[in-house]
C-alpha cells in the first residue's frame, strides 16, 4: 500500500453565505501521521474534512496533498477516502460488494474483487461474512466494513469523520486500538475527526484543537494537554481549574497573578504567550485536578478551602472544594489504598508545583 503523503492546508477560509465556518486554517500534516481535529460540535471539523476530500471548495486558500494543489479536482479524483460520520454503507450491496466498490467502478473483474474482499475481510476480522448485507451486521462490524471499503480504494490519505461516535464505550475503546493498529500497518496518513478528547489524545501523533471555525492550537497530545495555548484549549481538553486575575509580576517564563479570590499564585507562562504578557494584564491560570496535593507548600502555590464533597471513582478520588468567595476547585487523588477521607466542611490546605500550572492571557472558556 502507498506510504503516507503530506497534507497541507494553506490559509483556508470556508464560507457559507455570510457565515464563516472555517477561518484562516493553516495545517501541515506529515505523511504517515495520525492527525486529529478535536473540537466541540459545530466548530467546522466536518467542513474542513469535506474541503480535503473535495466535496466543497474553500472560499480561499489551497489544499495540497502530496505537494499537489487539489483545486478543481472532484472527490473521485483525489487520493483520499472518507469514512462518513454515518458510515454510508450501500444498503443494497453485499458486504464484499461494498468493500470492493472502488474496484468495481475502476473496472475490476468479479473474481479479482472477491479475492481482494476476502483478504480485507480477514484483515478486519470478519472472515466469511462477505455475503451478508450491511443491515445484518452489528454497529462495530459495520464500522470495520466501512474502514475496509475505504482502504480498498488504496488512498494516500484516509479521512475519518467521528467514525466511533455511534458505538458504545467498550467497543469504542476497542476500535481505537484497532484503528491505531491498522494505521500503523498500512502506514498511510490518517486524518481523524472527533469531539472526544480521550480519543484524540490516545490515538494521535498530532492534534488540532478547533473552536468555532478557528484552530486554536496544533501539537502532540502532551503539548495540548500540558501547555494549552488558549483558555479554550485548557478548558476543553481534559479537566482544569481556572483562576482569573491580573498579572502582578513576570520573571522570564514564570508569572505571578493576583487572583480574584485565591491570593497570589505563581505558574509557568504557556510557551506561546512567553514575552507577550505584561504586568497588569488580565490573565487566567490553569492547574489540573491531578496536579493538586494536600498540605502546605510554597506561599504562592498554596490555597486553602473547605471540603464540599468527596467522590470515589475507582482509580481516583475526586474531592470538590470551595475556596474563598465560593471559588469551586476540584482535586483528584490516585487511589493508593489509603482513603484521604476528609470530612465535609473541614478546612484544608493544598498546593501545586508551579511547573505544572500554566498562565495565559484571559479569553473564552469552553462552555460546559
Amino acid at each position, binding site marked *: 500500500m502507498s506510504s503516507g503523503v503530506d497534507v497541507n492546508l494553506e490559509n483556508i477560509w470556508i464560507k457559507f453565505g455570510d457565515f464563516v465556518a472555517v477561518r484562516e486554517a493553516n495545517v501541515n500534516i506529515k505523511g504517515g501521521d495520525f492527525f486529529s481535529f478535536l473540537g466541540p460540535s459545530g466548530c467546522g471539523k466536518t467542513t474542513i474534512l469535506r474541503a480535503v*476530500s*473535495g*466535496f466543497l471548495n474553500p472560499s480561499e486558500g489551497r489544499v495540497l496533498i502530496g505537494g499537489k494543489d487539489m483545486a478543481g479536482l*472532484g*472527490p*473521485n479524483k483525489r487520493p*483520499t*477516502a*472518507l469514512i*462518513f460520520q*454515518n458510515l*454510508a454503507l*450501500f*444498503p*443494497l450491496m453485499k458486504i464484499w460488494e461494498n468493500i470492493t*466498490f*472502488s474496484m*468495481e*467502478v*475502476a473496472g475490476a473483474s468479479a473474481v479479482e474483487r472477491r479475492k481482494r474482499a476476502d483478504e480485507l475481510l480477514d484483515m478486519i476480522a470478519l472472515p466469511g461474512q462477505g455475503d451478508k448485507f450491511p443491515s445484518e451486521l452489528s454497529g462495530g462490524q459495520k464500522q470495520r466494513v466501512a474502514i475496509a*471499503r*475505504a482502504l480498498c*480504494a488504496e488512498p494516500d490519505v484516509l479521512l475519518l469523520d467521528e467514525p466511533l461516535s455511534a458505538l458504545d464505550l467498550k467497543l469504542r475503546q476497542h476500535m481505537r486500538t484497532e484503528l491505531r493498529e491498522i494505521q500503523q500497518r498500512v502506514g498511510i496518513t490518517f486524518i481523524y475527526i472527533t469531539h472526544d478528547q480521550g480519543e484524540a489524545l490516545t490515538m494521535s501523533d498530532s492534534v488540532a484543537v478547533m473552536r468555532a471555525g478557528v484552530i486554536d492550537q496544533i501539537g502532540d497530545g502532551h503539548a495540548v494537554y500540558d501547555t494549552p495555548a488558549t483558555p479554550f484549549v485548557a478548558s476543553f481538553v481534559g479537566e482544569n481549574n481556572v483562576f482569573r486575575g491580573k498579572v502582578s509580576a513576570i520573571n522570564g517564563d514564570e508569572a505571578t497573578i493576583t487572583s480574584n479570590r485565591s491570593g497570589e499564585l505563581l505558574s509557568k507562562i504557556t510557551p506561546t504567550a512567553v514575552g507577550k504578557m505584561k504586568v497588569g494584564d488580565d490573565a487566567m491560570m490553569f492547574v489540573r485536578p491531578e496536579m493538586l496535593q494536600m498540605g502546605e507548600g510554597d506561599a504562592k502555590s498554596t490555597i486553602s478551602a473547605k471540603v464540599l464533597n468527596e467522590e470515589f471513582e475507582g482509580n481516583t478520588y475526586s474531592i470538590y472544594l470551595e475556596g474563598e468567595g465560593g471559588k469551586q476547585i476540584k482535586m483528584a487523588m490516585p487511589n493508593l489504598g489509603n482513603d484521604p477521607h476528609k470530612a465535609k466542611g473541614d478546612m484544608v490546605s493544598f498546593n501545586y508545583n508551579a511547573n505544572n500550572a500554566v498562565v495565559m492571557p484571559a479569553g473564552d472558556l469552553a462552555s460546559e
Partner: protein
Amino acid sequence: MKSNILFGRIALGVYFLIFFGYLIGPLVVMGLTAFNSAAFPSITPWQCFTYEWFGELFKDERILNGIKNSFIVGFGTVILSVSIGLAASLVLTQVWAKWRSTYYTIIIAPILIPGVVIGISTLVFWRKVSDSLGGVAFMNNGLFLTILGQSTFIASYCMLVFVARLQRFDPGLTEAALDLGASHTQAFRKILLPFMRPAIASAAVLAFLASFENYNTTTFTFGSYPTLTIELSQMVRYGINPSISALAVIIVAITVFGALALEVYRRRTKLKAGEIKPAKGLPSWLYGNIATILLVLMSFTVIGMLSTAQSYSPQQCKADFREARDLETRLKIEALQAARAAALAEAAANGEATEDAGTDAPAEQGGSSGAFGGVFAPTNLEDAAGQGDGASGGAAAPASPFGNVFDPTNLEDASGTSGN
C-alpha cells in the same frame, strides 16, 4: 346494551355488503354476461353458456387493433413519463432548494388540469409547431400526440411516486460512491438507480394503467390510431355485443392474477425475512395464505375453462333456445294480429271513420284511446326494431316509465325479427 351492539354489528355487516356489492357487483354482472349467448350483454334471461364471445373478441379487427394501439401508447407513455418523472423528482429533491415549492407547483399542475384541456392543447400546440416548421408528419401522428398528451400528466404521477422514495435516500451514499472513485454516472447507475428500482416499477405500472384507461385526453389526439378505450366508446354508439364483456373478464383476470401473485411474492419474502410465521398443518408452499389459495384456485379455473372450451359446444342449447323463441314470437304475432283484427272489426262496426282521417292507418285509429296514439303500439315497435334502430321494444306491456327499453330480450327479438 347488548341489542345495541348486535344492531351495530348488523348495520356494519349490511353496510359492507352494500359497499362491496357496489364495488364488485358491476364487475360480476359484466363477467357473467361474457358467458351468456344472448347477443346483447345481459344475464337475464340466461340463454346458453358459451365461450363464443371470446372467439368473437379475437376476431374483431377493431378491438384487436385498439388493444395494439393501447399497448404501443402504454409503453411509450411508460418510458416517457417514467424518465420525465424521475428527472423531475431528482431536480426537485437535489437541486434548487430556493425554487423548490414553485417548481413543485408547476410540475404538479398537469394533474389538476382537466384531461380534455390537455388533449386539446397538445393537439393545437403540435399542429402549430408542425405548421411553423412547414409540416412535419410525425408531429401530427396520433401515436406521437397521444403519448405526449398522456405523459403530460402521467409524468406528474410518476414524479410523486419518485419524490416519496427519494425522500428516504441518503445523499451521503452518492457522496461515498464519488469518494471511492465513481464518476457521477456510475454513482447514479450503481447507487441511486438500484435504490429507485421499486419506485420505478410501481411508477411504470401506474403509468401503464393510467395510459391504458385514458379516454378524455386521447379522444383529441388519437388521429388514425384509436386506442381500446376509443374503440369501445365508438362501439357503444353503434351497438355492442358481449365480446366487450369477454375483454373485461380477461382484463379483470389478469389484474387479479397479478395482484395475487404480487401478494404471494411479498408474503414469501416476508416469511423468508422471518417477519411472519408459517401456519401449522398446511403444505409449506401454501403457508396458510389466502392469496396463495386463491391464486391456485384461479389457475385451476382458468385451466378448466380453457380445456372445456375445446370440447364444449352450446349449439344444441342455442338451437333449442331459438326454437323456443321463434315459437314465442309467432304466438305473440298471432295474438297481435288477432287483437288488430278485433280492433278493426270494432271500428267498422262503430262506423266512426271520418273522411279526413282516412289517410291514417286503421290500426292507429283503433289505438287513439292512448295519449300518444299508436306510436307505442307493439307492432310498430316490432317493425322499428326490425329496421335496426335497436332503440327499444314494447311487446310486453310496459311496467316502468321506460317500458322495457333495457330489457335485452326485446332487442333479441328485434334482431331476431330483422333476421327472419
